[in-house]
């Protein structure tokens, strides 16, 4: 028996998925959610095998919600926005249903999902969720609550074992992501990877001073000092135009 959850802010959009799901007796619909917050809670509670996920939803969108799930289940995106398709497949979606979709198209998505499930069982590690479009905010979990951090508030990002530490004026947050993920998803003119373990908000740099051989230190407005590697220094120079 597979467990499934529908996350969509439109009741009728949920009801059509429910209707199409009826013949699938091996799939149990455990919950319907109105938004990403309810969705996240339901995923933690039920540990579903499959979610039907809308993208445009209140407060946090489907991609952002998915980023907060540690071991994402299989996802079938359902949306009227065609332009997200590529990003959805980056987010290892089983399929991408464009609203409105027919029963036949839905059944095809279910077949694809089953195939995906079989392949995933063979794969040793689940690939990290990667997104391509530059984000304008970072969504994190903070003591079980969801926090949305607008990018200008992010001072720097630091590697911390399996996690990445996001530092703001109000404190720091951990997110289970790679540095590579942030380097790819943050706007590259504003956030610069100055070191293997650091990505800095370029606007906050007040001074760059030499430090030891081949390396530098970047001083931030809040007084923090971050190491700058040789390649990081070259990157800084080209982007800041110095």
């Amino acid at each position, binding site marked *: 028996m597979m467990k499934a959850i529908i996350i969509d*802010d*439109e*009741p*009728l*959009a949920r*009801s*059509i998925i429910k*209707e199409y799901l009826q013949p699938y007796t091996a799939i149990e619909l455990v919950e319907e959610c*109105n*938004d990403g*917050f309810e969705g996240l809670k339901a995923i933690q509670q039920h540990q579903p095998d499959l979610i039907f996920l809308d993208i*445009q*939803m*209140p*407060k946090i969108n489907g991609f952002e919600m998915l980023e907060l799930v540690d071991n994402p289940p299989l996802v079938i995106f359902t949306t*009227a*926005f065609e332009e997200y398709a590529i990003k959805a497949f980056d987010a290892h979606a089983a399929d991408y249903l*464009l*609203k*409105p*979709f027919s029963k036949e198209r839905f059944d095809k998505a279910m077949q694809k999902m089953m195939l995906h499930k079989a392949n995933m069982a063979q794969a040793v590690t689940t690939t990290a969720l990667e997104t391509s479009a530059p984000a*304008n*905010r970072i969504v994190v979990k903070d003591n079980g609550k969801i926090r*949305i951090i*607008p*990018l*200008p508030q992010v001072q720097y990002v630091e590697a911390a074992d399996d996690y990445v530490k996001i530092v703001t004026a109000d404190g720091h947050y951990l997110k289970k992501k790679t540095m590579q993920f942030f380097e790819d998803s943050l706007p590259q003119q504003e956030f610069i990877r100055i070191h293997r373990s650091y990505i800095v908000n370029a606007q906050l740099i007040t001074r760059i001073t030499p430090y030891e051989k081949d390396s530098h230190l970047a001083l931030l407005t809040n007084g923090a000092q971050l190491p700058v590697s040789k390649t990081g220094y070259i990157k800084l120079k080209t982007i800041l135009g110095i």
Partner: protein
Amino acid sequence: MPEQIIKKEDKKRIAIIFIVWWLVWGSIHTGVLQFFNITYSHALTDAAVSCSMLAAACLFIINNMRYYLPKKEKYLYVIVISFALTAIWLALDRGILRSIYKRDEAYLQFLNQSLVIRYMIAFLMMACNTLLSLTWYTQKEQAEESERRADTERLAREAELNKLRQQLQPHFLFNSLNSISALTGQQPEKARHMIQQLSDFLRGTLRNEGQQWATLQSEIDHLQLYLDIEKVRFGYRLQSVIRCDENAWQLQLPAMLLQPLVENAIKFGLYDTIGEVEILIAAKRVEEMLEVTVQNPYDESTAMQIKGTGFGLASIRRRLFLLFGRQDLLQINKAAEKFMVTLHVPQRTTGNNKQ
């Protein structure tokens, strides 16, 4: 350079001035010759030959300029062409007059003596004529050019306004169709009703695309359809209140201006908050303006990332600027939990609102 087109009235007026001028000049010429004791018949013939030829030369220059208008070295052109044409004219004039009065020694002597003064006067005349026609044609060309530029600007403006008016989001359509698809299986009557609403709304949108202005009444009717469809989609979450003063219903506003504003408010309200969303639309008359306010709930703490990401307000502001040349007609107010957009539409009293 393309041949310049001269208006018929202009042509006639110029022709009359030209003829009158040469008649006057011809009489002066005759009078002056008589003053120098030349017989009336001699003087008249001399004047007729000289003046008609000089007039022909002037006409040649005027005509020529229709095809070639000097841009650089204008004054040099005036002097050179006047100098050359006057010389040719004088040679011909002398030749013709000499052949007419071969045996009149006294007249021929007078003719030879007066050659220099004839040349000078003719040169001045020719130069004036050339200069005048040069100025006239240049002005004409500039007027045409600026008219053309104004035309181009007007066309560009119309195209932009047209584009700004067509704001309908395809996502709205696809999501509505998805709702209808869901209703078809479960509540066919409701599905039919929603198809009707959607058709009415789309028809209204198509109709409005062709026109610039509409009354508040028709715009609100159109909005109501839009709101009803959105309410089917979002269920209990979406509510709307419309509050219009009696004396505002017949006021005019640009067609399809409110729709993106309300669409914006719904999107903002629904995606930036959780829970119920009430959209308030209020309209009243304030002096010679129609004031419309659209209000939606919002969350200050997360609204930051929405700032400037094309939530439709910029295009509305642009449209107002194109229509009225003012930047102050759209105001945004943010209170703790309310986002309010206030729109002012000037009413033109003369009733020429329909552009």
